[in-house]
């Protein structure tokens, strides 16, 4: 199966700026996810996306966050006005294919640094 690819691998942004993190390519999967990991801390669930809609979101996923699948393949996470505490690794993931579930496939992550 194709890997989950994330771009960019590293992004530095000014506080208050908007960032868009991308997850490509995506094909033939129903469930997509965004997770984040603040340096040295555990991996935290942000949002799940099923059938082109948000399925579930965590308390972290407030109004500053949004997800889209604009062209049916790319899957994006937008942070409208970044804060210092948004600095983290952001991971995209997809669920298993078909009826057999054998674990999630994670992308290599985008390291977001807010200065």
């Amino acid at each position, binding site marked *: 199966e194709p890997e989950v690819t994330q771009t960019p691998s590293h992004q530095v942004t000014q506080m208050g700026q908007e960032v868009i993190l991308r997850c490509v390519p995506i094909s033939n999967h129903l469930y997509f996810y965004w997770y984040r990991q603040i340096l040295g801390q555990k991996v935290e669930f942000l949002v799940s996306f099923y059938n082109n809609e948000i399925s579930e979101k965590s308390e972290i996923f407030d109004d500053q966050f949004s997800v889209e699948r604009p062209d049916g393949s790319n899957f994006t996470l937008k942070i409208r006005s970044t804060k210092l505490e948004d600095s983290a690794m952001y991971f995209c993931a997809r669920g298993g294919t078909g009826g057999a579930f054998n674990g*999630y496939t*994670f992308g290599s992550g985008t390291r977001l640094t807010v200065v």
Partner: protein
Amino acid sequence: SQQGEEDPQALSIQEGENATMNCSYKTSINNLQWYRQNSGRGLVHLILIRSNEREKHSGRLRVTLDTSKKSSSLLITASRAADTASYFCATEWDSSYKLIFGSGTRLLVRP
């Protein structure tokens, strides 16, 4: 909240020894998964064990699940220096298709 919590937080062993990591969780699960993360890199799925399974093997990995104690263990046999990484357990609930991760165990395998 339903978090997987792991112990030990850090483990240092000699190459060739076995490494055992434990994970505990709080509520009913659909399955429990183990992931590996090399420093600063992505998460790699290692193995999944369903709630109706008690033990599973994959190569040098052995995972056990005790739902009565809400705990799991990951055993890496005959460890290698390349096994050095952080290992996370993650649970998937009965009613939710998402993973809740534990805090991880940092494994160092000395050559």
